[in-house]
């Protein structure tokens, strides 16, 4: 019959003791966003890491609550190394800063840093009102509050850098939040949004139809991921956010209580995976720059980011006020 063997099999799986050496089953990477181009970057690393460990590392999309849901889900799993946090800056640093999560970056044990991705302002290729960054800003200034733009989810990192640019240039445009950048790009191409903030993954899949007018990072490599487009500083705009602060990045983490020998194995596998040239080339082709920071640099790199993010939060507050005064 059908039910009996099934029950037996299920019982067998549940009752299997942990007799073998780590890892003796598949590992999960809990990824905080909806599936899409960015998830593929994590999948590249997961796949290479799985080869080093001899098991599958699957990337499980667990979106919700601005990325913190994934952390919450992963925190409820045992600290045995079979669950990895895909520690994006939003759930790791930003949401705790906003009082939306109880942890800090110090509550986790780092593996290696994974990738960084800068953001960029894009417009439609066939846009006739403005062609580049200066003309976009000039238009926005001449028509305060008329342009519609989306940074994807509200109050996130892309929103901060966008608000910062608008604040520095003293221009106002209506923010229209979308659950993800991947969703908003459709409405930019469809003509209801006038410009938006994108990440390299979404840009790559839409580059026939959109044009980058400014890359929101001071780093040269960031410009390379957008086909050599000009950086915002080339137009004399100072973002006031340095290094990693205005960028999306992820650092793979495990729970603090994870056994040392398990952490060592995971670190070793991830380090080797990231050192492979084919992995690096694949990531770069997708627009994601491998960071190459080791576990010992975690505190030094992640610590200062929080302070820089405060200025982004202030910019969002400024934007809100400016929009309200325009509407009056």
């Amino acid at each position, binding site marked *: *019959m*059908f*039910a*009996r063997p099934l*029950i037996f099999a*299920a019982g067998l799986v549940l009752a299997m003791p942990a007799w073998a050496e780590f890892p003796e089953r598949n590992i999960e990477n809990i990824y905080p966003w*909806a*599936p*899409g*181009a960015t*998830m*593929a970057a994590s*999948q*590249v690393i*997961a*796949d290479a890491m*799985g080869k080093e460990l001899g098991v*599958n*590392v*699957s*990337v*499980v*999309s*667990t979106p*919700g*609550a*601005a990325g*913190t*849901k994934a952390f*919450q*889900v992963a925190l409820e*799993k045992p600290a045995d190394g079979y669950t990895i946090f895909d520690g994006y800056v939003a759930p790791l640093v930003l949401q705790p800063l*906003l009082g939306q999560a109880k942890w800090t970056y110090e509550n986790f044990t780092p593996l290696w840093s994974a990738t960084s991705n800068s953001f960029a302002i894009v417009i439609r290729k066939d846009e006739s009102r403005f062609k580049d960054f200066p003309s976009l800003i000039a238009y926005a200034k001449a028509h305060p509050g*008329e342009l*519609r733009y989306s940074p994807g*989810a*509200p*109050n996130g990192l892309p929103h901060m850098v966008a608000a910062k640019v608008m604040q520095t240039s003293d221009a106002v445009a*209506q923010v*229209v*939040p*979308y*659950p993800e950048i*991947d*969703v908003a*790009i*459709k*409405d930019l*191409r*469809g003509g*209801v*949004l006038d410009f938006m903030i994108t990440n390299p*993954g979404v840009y*790559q*899949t*839409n*580059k*026939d139809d959109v044009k980058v007018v400014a890359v929101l990072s001071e780093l040269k490599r960031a410009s390379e991921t957008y086909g050599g487009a000009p950086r915002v500083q080339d137009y004399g705009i100072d973002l006031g956010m340095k290094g990693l602060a205005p960028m999306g990045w992820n650092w793979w983490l495990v729970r603090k209580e994870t056994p040392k020998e398990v952490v060592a194995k995971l670190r070793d596998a991830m380090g080797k995976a990231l050192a492979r040239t084919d992995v690096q080339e*694949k990531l770069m082709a*997708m627009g994601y720059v491998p960071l190459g920071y080791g576990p010992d640099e975690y505190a030094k790199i992640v610590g200062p980011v929080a302070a820089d993010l405060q200025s982004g939060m202030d910019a969002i507050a400024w934007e809100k006020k400016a929009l309200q005064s325009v509407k009056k």
Partner: protein
Amino acid sequence: MFELLQGVPLFFNPLALAATTLGIIAGLVIGVLPGLGPLMGIVLMLPVAFHLPPIAGMGMLIAIYIGGSAGGSVSAILLRIPGTPIAAATLFDGFPMAQKGRAQDAVGLAMTASTLGGLIGGIVLLFFSPLLAKFALRFAPPEYFGMALLGVLTIAIVSEGSALKGLLAGGLGLALAMIGTDEFTNAYRFTFGNFNLSSGPHVVAVVVGLFALSELFFQIESGGFLDRPNVQRLRVSFRAFRLIVHHKVNLVRSALIGTFFGAIPGTGGDVSAFISYAAAKKMSRPGEVFGEGAEAGIVASEAANNGCCGGAMIPTLSLGIPGDGSTAVLMGGLILLGFFPGPELFRSHPEIVGGIFIAYMVGNIIMLLLGVVLAPLFGRVLRIPKAWLIPAVLLLSVLGTYALQSSVFDLWVMLVFGAVGYLMRRAHYPLAPVIIGMILGNVLENNFRRALLLSRDGPMIFVERPISAAIIAIDILLLIMIVVSTIRASRRAERDPGPDQT
């Protein structure tokens, strides 16, 4: 289009064919288990796909997608557990049909309708990809709002008996959709400080509770635990092919509804299944009683949710904008294999697009053959005495729901909605509107608010855009139709008081 034929040699080789067959089997199994939908199946098999050549890898993932979309119907028909939310509409008629001793026909019809629906979706994919993709781009928040409203209005049509009870149940669904994080401010709504509610209750936990658990409670209540149900012995049969001929109009209509909804990113199979079910019900022939085992009900739901697979591939391949969660992961797989979807892919790698298309079509045909061969095996479940079946179904429900996000909280949600479902059925409230309301609530609210933010002159945005205006006009017409027919029905009831129907 002829360039796409370059994909033929890439697909017709032993490895790609084997990978696709394996994908279909894996998809069917994953679809049958409650909770584990096609999305989970694709995610689990993604690492395996990388080690295959592009078309074999994509063939396997697409096969899981279509197999998983069809597999959910089997447990819906036999056990009243919709393996996936998209199969929820299949159980309305599938389960009563199986209870009447026609399990084989029900499963056969579901598989045949899924396959043909999928193939129709595939033909649309082949011929109308660029056209539909352009059309999909013109769908912005005002249009989504209108479509979601259309979906919500179908509640009144799908509901059995009292439209008022249906609307109340739909209201419950809309209320449930409000729980979670507000998309515009990131504020938590109705979470009561409980982090597990930060994205609202999981829709699958609610579906399994409402439908499967409530059924278990009814089964326990009715006793007879050791009776061996006298069900016809099932065998491999191609009878469903003959049966489906009677529903050809319904089949094509439902598949096209499915393809259309699939092609518009963000709506998806579940909504299309409900809408085509409502359409089939509205246009039913005399003598077809929906909700009591009408063949047309199964055909409508299954043709739509598999037609949706083909539809959802359209924006994924031709725009690089995935139609739903599963196609988003499929797109991720394609990128990892080194191909960026979008118009450029059609120009630079027509053989890849062609190979994917052929894999999709052949996958559907393999699914039909496997479905027919496996139907008797599935059907044996009905011969198991309740004393075995009830614990087994409970175990499957618990495992599937827990596997969603490894959360014990989801099990509580399932249990609570099991009780809610039981009480609602006792009081003759329909369950489907709860799910429709829950799925569409967010689409409705967020697109309404987004449309108003985009608009430069308030609510006028809904009538200034031609497609939006047309959809809103259909909404209003449908609303008038529902109100008029409700008033007429109540007048008739007053004139001719029949037996009490509560």
